[in-house]
């Protein structure tokens, strides 16, 4: 468990031993498995329109609820004869898009709010009060409230999830900025006459990077699950769009006759979340040793 014990063991030098990616894979085997799953998710999401065998929305009334392994339909078809593999691939692409845009938006907003609050005490109370208020609710409740204001749909879903995740980033950035601000190199920059903005951009934000990366690796699976949950509740991505959560909602009434329409989208969702979780654990150990015990 202790850091010194693991690093003290002399590692035999192998080819490519200096490569940080290879180093990570050797030390965190499960994390590397997660990285592979995440990589597969990114690649299949990016290439979905080209590698999916069919259009995800094409209905085939003669070929409904075919089981997995059917000729020409590797994962079978759903109640409208739509090819399940194609819908899974396109659903993954949509999940990837929603998760990445919402997480990047909330990370940027959170860093802005957090560093601003840490630098301008006048704004601190108001900003952090609002953040604490948002933290008093589970993320999905915040997202749901925002959807009740904006309405359903993919863009609104992204906004809702982004807002629900801003406070976590803001709190992290706020706390870290407060401590980095007191460091010698920042004092040196102040003494040299650097402006607040230059200090934040050049000295503070780069030092937030590793913690923000770890946080992001944990926020992506959360936003994927939240998006799927809200779509499952009928308040996110709307049918007939291929999305794992709304596919599961649709599958509820067909699971008796064709369990695969319920099992396959859930498996995909779990696999991706699992991949991000174990990758996140590995990254946390590798990048942020202070958080190791949590």
């Amino acid at each position: 468990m202790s850091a010194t014990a693991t690093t003290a063991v002399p590692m035999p030098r192998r080819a490519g031993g200096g490569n940080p990616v290879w180093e990570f894979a050797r030390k965190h085997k499960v994390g590397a498995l997660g990285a592979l799953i995440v990589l597969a998710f990114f690649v299949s999401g990016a290439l979905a329109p080209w590698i999916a065998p069919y259009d995800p929305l094409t209905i085939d009334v003669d070929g409904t609820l075919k089981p997995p392994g059917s000729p020409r339909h590797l994962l079978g078809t759903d109640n409208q004869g739509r090819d399940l593999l194609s819908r899974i691939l396109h659903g993954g692409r949509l999940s990837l898009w929603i998760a990445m845009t919402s997480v990047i938006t909330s990370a940027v907003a959170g860093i802005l709010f957090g560093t601003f609050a840490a630098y301008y005490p006048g704004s601190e109370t108001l900003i952090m009060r609002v953040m604490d208020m948002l933290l008093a609710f589970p993320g999905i409740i915040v997202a749901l409230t925002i959807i009740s204001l904006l309405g359903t749909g993919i863009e609104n879903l992204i906004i809702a999830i982004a807002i629900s995740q801003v406070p976590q980033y803001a709190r992290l950035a706020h706390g870290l900025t407060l401590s980095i601000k007191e460091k010698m190199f920042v004092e040196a920059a102040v003494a040299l006459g650097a402006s607040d903005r230059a200090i934040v951009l050049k000295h503070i934000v780069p030092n937030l990077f590793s913690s923000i990366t770890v946080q992001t690796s944990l926020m992506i699976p959360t936003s994927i699950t939240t998006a799927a949950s809200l779509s499952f509740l009928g308040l996110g991505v709307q049918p007939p769009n291929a999305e794992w959560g709304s596919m599961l909602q649709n599958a509820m009434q067909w699971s008796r006759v064709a369990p695969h329409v319920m099992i396959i989208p859930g498996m995909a969702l779990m696999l991706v979340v699992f991949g991000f979780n174990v990758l996140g654990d590995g990254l946390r150990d590798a990048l942020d040793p202070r958080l190791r015990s949590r």
Partner: protein
Amino acid sequence: MTAYLVRRALLSIPTLFLVVTVVFLAFQIIPSDPARLFAGETAAQETVERIRKDLGLDRPAWVQYTDYITKLVTGNLGRSFTTRRLVVDELGPRFVNTIKLSVWAILLATTVGVLLGTIAAVNQGKTMDHIATIIALVGISIPVFWLGLLMMFFFSVTLGILPAAGNETWRHYIMPTVALSVFSLAFIARMTRSSLLEVIRQDYVRTARAKGAQEWVVIGRHALANALLPVVIVVGLRFGFMLGGALVVEEVFAWPGLGRLMIVAVGQRDIPVVQGVLLLFAATFFLINALVDLAYGLLDPRIRYA
């Protein structure tokens, strides 16, 4: 201790006030007309106007706001736009249902989670540890609603041994409780494992072993008692977040709780009900936080409340 609780309650008031104000403002900004929504797309303009007057939405925003706040102080949350019943009456029984489900789920998550984490830590690096670690990883990765659907498919549809919907008997509780607890269970197990692994290395645990105490006494009385401190915080936090999980679980198992009420209210833009649910969630969260802090003080005598 009473003084401490009273102070905590007073401290939560500004935040609750902020919640009410933010939600109120937000609903003012959006271009949506609850009266029109309530009357239906085809209703005549006079009907819409009459409903607007009925609901009190024809008054200026600040009058509506001060009216809402004044009533709130006396415990009146207004009336639902759709059912016209008092929001308090709508919330009460559903809140009880959600709390019942959440309490059972957190009890299950805590007992099994601590047990699983302890087994893993005591057998660190052995097969049992790997099995427990994998269970915990699957537990934090499996989507709650999918787990619910899988259980329903297996136990209700295929085997027919558990009821799929409702909350009448204890048998109705089994699947929703398990579904709601799994994420927290896995989370608590991971927390217990890492916390216990740190404590086991401490000198006082070695001393306890050295004086010949039995292994279960060493683990139970000396190690676990100290390792549980951070776990208590996690349990409290998870309980707050269970209300979010309950939203989805309630939908899967048709559980008549707050989550389903909120989903319906969101769909109908029933603002007083949404406000009420949010306030109740926030108040519960603050109450739990205060209780967690108190529990922390009971477990760690070094902490005193002034």
